[in-house]
């Protein structure tokens, strides 16, 4: 595909991801409300929130870095999304996938949080740095099982290309890595709980402890940018997981179903548990998920 249409298609894809990310947020809020016995907000509420935040007037100034942080955050989300093929076989939705995209994706997952760390620290509110340090600690912890799971898949497939990993899983659900390498999947999906920051791993925002963590000082347009970043980042993660473990998608509806299920997994757990303390969360990821990750890698090694 020529470059120009590709760029245009990617832009459409980003907007689509944003829309989907916001919508899924709305659906999840509705579901959460139902389990709590409430009616809940309309499904389109996140769009309204975004629009509202764009209509507010900014009244803060914490320095250049803090202005840039949301851009980093959104950039991280969008960047990650752009690296991952959404529907394999449809060039318009394959984005800028290339042979080493998995490595790049692993890096981009850090990108947003690091940018946030720089900006939030400058915002001056003590809750921000505390939240950042919590977030980075937890991230480091869940990256370990996730990385082990990815290593297992890479070793299994013999490629760093998401495209190839997806291709290797074609031919029915029994070929999915979820079945092929269940230990790595367990490690990765437990890590996903931390990645998606629902309870019991929502220690970064933790309203009862450090309200609301890193974005404490961000408002209006900055906050909308953060919302954009969060929505696209969530979509990108889900797509990545879908590609890695659920055999990717061959059509958009399939992608929607699979990504939603992946997202719902974290909500399913998050709705009914309180939150861990920071060190408990870290211990959790360094415990069974890591063991499962190591075992997953070993399984691949032994199978060769």
């Amino acid at each position: 595909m020529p470059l120009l249409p590709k760029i245009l298609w990617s832009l459409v894809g980003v907007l689509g991801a944003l829309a989907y990310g916001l919508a899924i947020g709305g659906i999840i809020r509705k579901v959460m409300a139902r389990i709590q016995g409430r009616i809940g907000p309309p499904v389109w509420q996140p769009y309204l929130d975004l629009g509202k935040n764009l209509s507010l007037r900014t009244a803060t100034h914490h320095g250049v870095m803090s202005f840039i942080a949301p851009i980093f955050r959104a950039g991280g989300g969008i960047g990650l999304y752009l690296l991952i093929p959404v529907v394999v076989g449809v060039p318009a939705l394959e984005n800028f996938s290339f042979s080493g995209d998995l490595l790049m994706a692993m890096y981009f997952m850090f990108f947003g949080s690091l940018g946030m760390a720089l900006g939030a620290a400058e915002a001056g509110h003590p809750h921000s740095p505390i939240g950042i340090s919590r977030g980075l600690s937890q991230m480091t912890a869940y990256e370990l099982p996730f990385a082990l799971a990815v290593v297992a898949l890479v070793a299994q497939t013999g490629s760093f290309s998401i495209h190839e990993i997806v291709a290797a899983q074609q031919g029915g659900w029994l070929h999915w890595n979820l079945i092929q390498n269940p230990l790595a999947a367990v490690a990765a999906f437990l890590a996903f709980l931390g990645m998606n920051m629902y309870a019991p791993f929502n220690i970064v925002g933790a309203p009862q402890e450090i309200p609301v963590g890193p974005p404490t000082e961000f408002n209006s347009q900055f906050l909308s940018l953060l919302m954009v970043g969060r929505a696209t980042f969530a979509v990108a993660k889900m797509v990545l997981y879908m590609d890695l473990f659920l055999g990717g998608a061959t059509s958009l509806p399939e992608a929607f179903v699979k990504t939603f299920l992946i997202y719902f997994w974290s909500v399913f757990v998050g709705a009914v548990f309180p939150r861990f303390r920071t060190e408990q969360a870290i211990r959790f990821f360094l415990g069974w998920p890591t063991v499962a990750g190591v075992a997953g890698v070993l399984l691949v090694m032994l199978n060769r």
Partner: protein
Amino acid sequence: MTTTETLRRRVQLWFGPQHPGITGNMSVQAWLEGDTLTQGITHVGYLHRAFEKLMERRKFIQSFPIVCRICVPEPDTNEYLLAAALEELSGLDREVPEKALWIRTLVLEMSRLAAMLQVLGGHVGSMGLGVVPNWTYTLRDYVLDRFEELTGARVYHMYTVFGGVRRDLPEGFAERMETEVLAKIEAKLPVIDNAIFDSSVFRKRAIGVGVVPEEWADEMGISGPVVRAMGIPRDTRKDFPYLKYPELDFEVVTTTGSDIYARAWIRRQEIAQSVDLIRQILRRMPTEGPYCAKLPNMLTWTIPPGQTYVRAEASRGEMGYYVVTDGSDKMRRVHVRGPSYVHGVSLLERLIPGTNIADLSPLMVSLQTCPPEIER
């Protein structure tokens, strides 16, 4: 390490007054080392309305609408205690009709139930679980519905006055209480148990956290679920019997551990106990008879000089009223001694050093700190 270095490593952090994790409009000035609090000072006064001062310039009947504001979740204890103190000082206590005593017991138990439902939700709510607080607040709201039916108001009932209560029990109240409140609470409790006491995360967060040493109990005057979680069966309803409690059949709930989990468990058990007590009360309440003694003209009533201290068991612990009269139509002094005065200031400040920052909010909830009671 020198002092300067220690100070440099400490971060000062204000919990509140604008903080979702704080119980009401108060604040804790805390110093952090890493994730651990090394020192905390309770700051109150954000809700200071000078109740005691205002009551000194209000007539006795006019004090009733104002006392219930001292504790928002549980106003009836205040109303009852003021009534009890003034009745004792004026000699009216002998004339309170039987039915009024039963209704007062009912109202106190309902308010305990409502408050404990709220706190039980708060226990996990403060740890970030939204489901249970939503349910318990709903259940509490069912109790408030019945309060509204009985007293005419949802939150501030202004229902108990000296001589008895202000209105009779409505027709069919007992049935509605059973079907609309008690049955619903009992149906939901097992699921709440699953989500709290059987939850591995809650157990991890709560067991062994915020332990109050047993030897503090006597000298500090710790009361309520906090002291019962130490295994000490201390309950004003048994120790200083009042109203119809001596005639009711119940045991003081105790457990061991003295941590957040134990206190939550005590509250859970006391909800069941309250439900049972309300059933007993409604079953045994006389249907006929007056609900209030004949009162003199409240605009001019005077009470002979005297002083007394009365107490009752609120959901938080022992609530006491010290009332001094001087023969005029107003109180000379009224001092409200709420359990939070000790729990929320002295005890909390002693418990804070060594507590994880994440545990402060659950700790405060488990002590059921109620700031209006501290500053009044």
